[in-house]
């Protein structure tokens, strides 16, 4: 890859890139730990994970500041400009995912107090899927690979399907056993949170596509993501 003539500028952009990757790593860890806390009914792990959100929030502020500084001092253009605007949006999505992981942990603490519910297959699949999506979008960002990002977007459809499946299963479960209502509501929220992580991962993927191809594919529906590519 061709480097910038101004090496300090090159360094700043690399540092920003690394920071985003680190933040993405932290967010991934928060999600996987919150999922584990749910599965293993481990309120201590959930509480420890909630504390991690602070560093994610700090990441967001720092990255924002660095973007502002580069915008003000370097007036980035073309690919650099797309990178900065992409970075600004990515941190927002990552920070939101961090918040959702906190929400998941809170539900994990609540659920740990109640007797265990019958395992719901769709929920487990969703949890796996969104974690894979997060990992994949981070890789696509690192490799500047638009096609991999587009694949992430397509996987969100499956998340949505699973979510609706989980919804149906939960509803029938709760209608059969009114005592499960309390736990059911928490579990429904968990499903909703996982689905939203999938949405944010999709946003991240769209941002990576814009970063690489310069094409804005948000709100374009399914047409913008051609199946074959």
């Amino acid at each position, binding site marked *: 890859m*061709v480097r*910038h*003539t101004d090496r300090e500028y090159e360094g700043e952009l690399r540092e920003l890139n690394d920071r985003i990757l680190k933040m993405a790593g932290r967010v991934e860890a928060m999600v996987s730990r919150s999922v584990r806390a749910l599965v293993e009914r481990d309120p201590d792990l959930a509480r420890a994970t909630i504390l991690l959100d602070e560093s994610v929030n700090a990441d967001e502020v720092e990255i924002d500041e660095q973007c502002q500084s580069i915008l003000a001092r370097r007036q980035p*253009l*073309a690919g*650099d400009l797309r990178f900065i605007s992409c970075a600004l949006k990515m941190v927002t999505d990552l920070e939101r995912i961090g918040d959702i992981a906190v929400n998941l942990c809170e539900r994990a603490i609540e659920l740990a107090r109640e007797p265990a519910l019958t395992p719901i297959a769709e929920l487990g699949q969703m949890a796996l899927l969104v974690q894979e999506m997060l990992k994949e979008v981070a890789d696509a960002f690192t490799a500047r690979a638009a096609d991999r990002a587009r694949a992430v977007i397509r996987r969100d459809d499956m998340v949505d399907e699973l979510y609706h499946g989980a919804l149906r299963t939960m509803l029938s479960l709760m209608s059969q056993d009114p005592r499960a209502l309390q736990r059911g509501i928490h579990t429904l929220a968990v499903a909703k949170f996982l689905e939203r992580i999938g949405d944010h991962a999709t946003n991240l993927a769209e941002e990576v596509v814009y970063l690489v191809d310069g094409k804005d594919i948000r709100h374009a529906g399914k047409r913008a993501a051609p199946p074959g590519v």
Partner: protein
Amino acid sequence: MSTAAAAVPSTPAADDAKRPGRAKMEVRALSAAFGSNQVVRAIDLDIEARRVLAIIGPSGCGKSTFVRCLNRMHEITLGATVTGQVLLDGEDLYGRGVDPVLLRRRVGMVFQKPNPFPTMSIKENVLAGLRLTGTLGGTDAARVVESALTSAALWDEVKDRLDAPGGSLSGGQQQRLCIARALAVEPEVLLMDEPCSALDPIATARIEDLIHVLRERYTIVIVTHNMQQAARASDTTAFFLHGELVECSPTERLFTHPRDRRTEDYITGKFG
């Protein structure tokens, strides 16, 4: 815009030619050289009427030489040669029987360094084009001076000292005086060769603001090595490299997502 166009009775063809977006100048296979040193190579480019075209590129990429071919100023340098065509409203500038002197009244030029005539007053500078060529005739000199200076956004600053020497103005004012001088001849196209490179940011902002206004009436080509200026002031941007046209795109597109790798590398500062 549309009401003005409706009020002026004109043939459909003439109307069409004046419409913004229509090609005012068409450059075809234009090459230029100094002696055996080829500096512009086979350029094909359309310059749209009443739009601002910015030309960017590293030093020595031929951008200045290119614009100087558009009003045949290139050939005044000894040993300079040009091949190819430049059509102005469909007529080849380099065709047989075209008088470069008359052509330059249609295609005006503003230079890098403000260059008001030092021996003339502000007023005389504005009138210089008409006086030099003896075409002032019966036209009302005072009116020409006021309208040209107003167009160049300089009237209010100098109206009380029109007889002061042109050199007594600040750099930015001098450059606007040069623009007024070029406008007084009533050109159709205005070429600007790095018009702000000798000016401070405020004076630069004034000129850029002026460019936005002037594009209502004139077709403007601005050469600049300041990419931010091209981004701010132009509708279309052309990137030159080693005498070749690498890319010509709508400005917004070129600066967010250029088509060519070399453009990307240049505007993000990944050169050399």
